[in-house]
């Protein structure tokens, strides 16, 4: 089929042909069943795209992100917020002092699902570690303002954690006027190796951080790491998290999930739908944190993230 006919059919579909062109095309259609099939296929393409448009909804977190603009204030304009969260959470194998750099919106999920192999079978206790219920998240602040000044509470937290200034300290709380400046200050996409907005230089007694943006792929120093995991639950402008001990076979990486919390416990975790993701692998990763106690988080569904750091699973 030549380009002129292809374009003619496309324009016919949109009613873009002038009367003469339309008559000519209709004659051609009447004489050629193949052409009619082609037109029907193009109609299906349009319907499919319309269905796709209807199925895609902006994440609820966008409203919060745009909130200051909607209320007429640029002074507290939304931006790529930089939030330092200090955590001291006991896990089965020791104490992790980590700093979480969250420069991403609450309901946004990382781009890359890095699960590559199934996890070992086992009960919830195994997933949660032998220490029983993990300590509560220190970061639950349900009443927090929608757009707290970035870093307002961060320096004390960071000082308490004994951490040096991180690269995100210089980032503004809002969008810079200049696009390039925005880009330069912007955090990397979660899961992107080598991106900006990585973890502070010092993070953990275990020699690793569960911070966002570190691009950890689980391949480096796999043999000398102690497995650790963290579930983050993004609640509007707040974040809660719990550390847990993943199973040995858990695949390191960052896993975007949706989290259902009821009665202070994570009841269900499911992967964020990705057209090209391997759904079963990511589901297996999510099973790790089901049943994890996360007190202080109101019942509901949230965006979340499972970060697993530790030895790579056996290969081959």
């Amino acid at each position, binding site marked *: *089929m030549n*380009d002129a006919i*292809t*374009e003619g*059919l*496309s*324009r016919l*579909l*949109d009613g*873009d042909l002038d009367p003469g062109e339309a008559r000519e095309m209709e004659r051609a259609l009447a004489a050629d069943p193949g052409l009619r099939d*082609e037109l029907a*296929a*193009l109609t*299906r*393409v*349009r319907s*499919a*795209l*319309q*269905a*796709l*448009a209807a*199925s*895609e*909804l*902006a*994440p609820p*977190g*966008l*409203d919060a*992100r*745009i909130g200051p*603009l*909607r209320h*007429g204030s*640029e002074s507290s*304009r*939304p*931006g*790529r917020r930089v939030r330092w969260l200090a955590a001291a959470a006991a896990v089965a194998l020791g104490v992790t002092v980590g700093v979480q750099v969250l420069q*991403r*919106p609450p*309901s*946004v*999920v*990382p*781009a*890359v699902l890095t699960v590559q192999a199934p996890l070992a079978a086992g009960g919830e206790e195994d997933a949660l570690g032998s220490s029983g219920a993990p300590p509560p998240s220190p970061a639950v602040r349900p009443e927090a303002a929608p757009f707290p000044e970035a870093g307002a509470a961060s320096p004390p937290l960071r000082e308490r954690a004994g951490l040096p200034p991180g690269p995100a300290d210089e980032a503004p709380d809002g*969008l810079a006027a200049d*696009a*390039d400046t*925005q*880009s330069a200050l*912007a955090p990397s*996409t*979660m899961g992107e190796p080598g991106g900006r907005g990585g973890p502070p230089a010092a993070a953990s007694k275990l020699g690793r951080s569960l911070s966002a943006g570190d691009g950890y792929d689980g391949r480096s120093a796999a043999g000398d790491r102690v497995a650790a995991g963290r579930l983050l639950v993004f609640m509007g402008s707040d974040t809660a998290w719990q550390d847990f001990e993943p199973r040995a076979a858990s695949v390191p990486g960052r896993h975007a999930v949706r989290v259902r919390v009821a009665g202070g416990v994570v009841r269900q975790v499911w992967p*964020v*739908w990705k*057209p*090209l993701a391997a759904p079963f692998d990511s589901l297996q990763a999510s099973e790790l944190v089901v049943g994890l106690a996360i007190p202080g988080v109101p019942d509901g569904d949230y965006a979340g993230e499972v970060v697993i750091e530790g030895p790579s699973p056996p290969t081959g």
Partner: protein
Amino acid sequence: MDFEELYQRFRQPVWRLARRLAGSEEEAFDLCQEIFLRVWRGLPGFRGEAQLSTWVFQIAWNHLRAHRKRQGRRGAVPVAAAGDARVLLEQLPDPRPDPERGAAAAEALALVAAALARLPEHFRVVVWLRDGEGLSYEQIATVLGVPVGTVRSRLARARALLRTVVG
């Protein structure tokens, strides 16, 4: 029109466009925020010479395109020659049904989204603005800053490419 009204009206379309052109949901989220900040800043100067939807999409497209340029990425698919349909067709997903995955609607949409993502950006944005968002040829031409004839030809090519998957 105040910003809140505008935001409510264009929140979904801008998100969808960003989603079509961004590499990830996360990136789309940030881009959406930046687009609406630009819209917010530009709204006082909007005098209605263009349709509001055209104006908003134009801001969105310009920002998304600039973002892509900064990233040094042109399109999802490396295309030796933009007009070489055969090269593109080979890179589109296999349209044959996968018996293991079934024919659930979500998966069908996933296939469409994946096929769309593999189109070169200049095809993808045209077919999305037309079929996904319902803009007219003239509106699309204004948004993209190209002649209407270019919109027609790109749209036809984009549909023909998608037809191999969806049709």
